């Protein structure tokens, strides 16, 4: 690789066999970034993050993230890193250099989502000023995981710097090879909600109301359920907009999972990158719906079947104790009016910071101004 500092290398892998090897490769890369005016983000094991921060002199531009909080799910990790880069640049950094340690789960289905993450990182952050390094301890890698790691990084980082990785495989090809986590079979059981013949897009508000009513559940699952409803609505809209009627919806609600199939009679899509390319990167509004769907549910599968084109969404529901302890949906335990008032107070403070004082906010003709 010709880049000396590594800023132009979007996604590299650092394969280390010892702590010394990790530091020998990572520290020069990160230190060069600080020298170039970049921000540094660390999402490694806590002990590695501490050592790297020590070696870099605890510069104010270093942001240490909780690794377990970042690597919860592939699409959420991508969203977190996109946000971190946006904010770093907004704070004045020229670019962001990040180093993270992706969890390694030797079970095939445990690795599948992180394998997917490594592939989609290449497209999801392609337009951002970021130089990323994924560090893996070679002693933890099985052969299939090692292969997956090498195939998803276009560059290698060594103590001598970056060099191209000739084992890199295009993300779309990698994604086709990764099988989805199989959900519990529910399709042969009676659905909780079935709408077999939906005529046109004007039915969307009515369907949303039906979905909301069917998905209503315990407050600690509210966030998962409402995100799932949003995902279903976006898939429905795609079916109306890009597919052919009639559109059929089947929804299963079990204590362990939410599953929904949306079937239309169109040709569907066959792009493994669908929903992984940020909408900003493409034509206006194109892909915005599937980008949301990928984040709002656990699994999106799409297939042509004898009855048409079917998109199947799944979200796994945690046990109540687990959900409560992770705080999923805790905001809903608070009255919405309290939350809204707190938001308005914050907004007024922000408005004051924009030097508005007490004058009208949306207009000066009295149509919607403060007195």
């Amino acid at each position, binding site marked *: 690789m010709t880049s000396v500092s590594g800023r132009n290398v979007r996604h590299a892998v650092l394969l280390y066999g010892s702590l010394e090897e990790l530091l020998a490769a990572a520290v020069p890369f990160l230190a060069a970034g600080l020298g170039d005016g970049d921000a540094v983000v660390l999402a490694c094991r806590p002990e590695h993050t501490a050592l790297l921060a020590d070696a870099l002199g605890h510069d104010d531009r270093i942001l240490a993230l909780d690794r377990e909080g970042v690597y919860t799910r592939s699409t959420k990790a991508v969203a977190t890193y996109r946000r971190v880069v946006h904010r770093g640049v907004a704070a004045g950094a020229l670019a962001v250099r990040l180093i993270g340690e992706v969890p390694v789960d030797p079970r095939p289905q445990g690795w599948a989502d992180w394998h997917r993450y490594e592939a989609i990182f290449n497209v999801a952050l392609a337009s951002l000023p970021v130089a990323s390094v994924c560090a893996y301890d070679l002693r933890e890698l099985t052969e299939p995981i090692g292969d997956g790691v090498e195939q998803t990084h276009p560059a290698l980082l060594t103590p001598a710097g970056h060099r191209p990785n000739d084992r890199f495989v295009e993300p779309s090809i990698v994604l086709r090879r990764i099988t989805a986590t199989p959900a519990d079979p529910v399709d042969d059981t009676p659905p909780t909600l079935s709408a077999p013949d939906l005529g046109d897009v*004007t039915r969307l508000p009515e369907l949303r109301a039906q979905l909301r009513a069917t998905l209503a559940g315990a407050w600690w699952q509210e966030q998962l359920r409402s995100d799932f*409803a*949003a995902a279903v*609505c976006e898939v429905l809209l795609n079916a109306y907009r890009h597919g052919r009627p009639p559109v059929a919806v089947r929804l299963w609600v079990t204590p362990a999972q939410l599953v929904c199939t949306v079937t239309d009679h169109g040709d569907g899509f066959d792009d493994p990158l669908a929903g992984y390319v940020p909408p900003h990167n493409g034509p206006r509004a194109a892909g915005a719906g599937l980008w949301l769907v990928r984040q709002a549910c656990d699994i999106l599968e799409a297939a042509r079947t004898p009855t048409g084109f079917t998109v199947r969404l799944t979200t796994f529901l945690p046990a109540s104790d687990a959900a409560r302890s992770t705080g999923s949906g805790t905001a809903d335990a608070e009255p*919405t009016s309290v939350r809204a008032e707190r*938001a308005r107070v914050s907004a007024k403070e922000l*408005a004051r910071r924009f030097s508005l004082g007490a004058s009208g*906010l*949306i207009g000066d003709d009295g149509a*919607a101004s403060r007195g």
Partner: protein
Amino acid sequence: MVVIDRRAPGLEWDGHLLLLHRTEDERLDGLTAWVRRGLDLGEKVIYTEVRHQPENGLLAVLTARGVDVAEAVCSGALVVLPPREFYPREGQQGVAERAFAEGFAAVRISAEATTALSTLPPAEVHGVEQQIDELVRTQPMHAMCQYEEATTTGPWLEDAVSVHLTGVRQTTFATSQALDGLALHGEVDTTNTDVFAAVMIAASRRAPRVLWVDLAELAYLDAGSCWRLDDATRPFRAAGGNVLLVAPQPSVERTMRMLEVDELPGMHVLGGS
């Protein structure tokens, strides 16, 4: 299906309203509620219409929907004028003043856009709407302008929304005046995202430096509409303006954050969490 609570503050049938109706039933439901509100408050209700059959006219519609039309007409509280009298050359100030002279404390007027177009050139309709808007803001007056949603598109929609910014009434979406700006109600998806975009365009054109949008009563915003929000406010934000998206419901806030709306320059999501 309809999630708008018409009893919510700001969503009464008062002020300068734009009734965007999808069906005739929807139009007549809204019109009946609007007339009933005026009669209940002791106001004078002045209407105009082009009807070839009396059974299709306002009085027949109200009667069928349980309004005591005979008493209202006898007392002078309800009158249907021909379009030429409803839209006099000198404007509607005189129409209102005659009602006040009769002893009514307030007056409300309503017509369909097609009725206005039967007597006014299309280019003059927006000017009349602006005059009505001025009257509503300065006199004890209310006005409801009825537009068919299917034919109210493009610049025609933007003009209509701009003079009724805090009084839009659509099937599943509405606007009102919030203490600190504009409040949105209901749901926004592909079926009404053009109306939503027109509202945001008009609001950002009117805002001097900060556009305050209260989202506490907005129950749904789809992904495509997040981009319409970006597009509609971009010129305002590019000129240094800031959009405050205040008190969104948790699901709406998560949608906006997943779509990175809060990362756009000049866009601020204040969720209160």
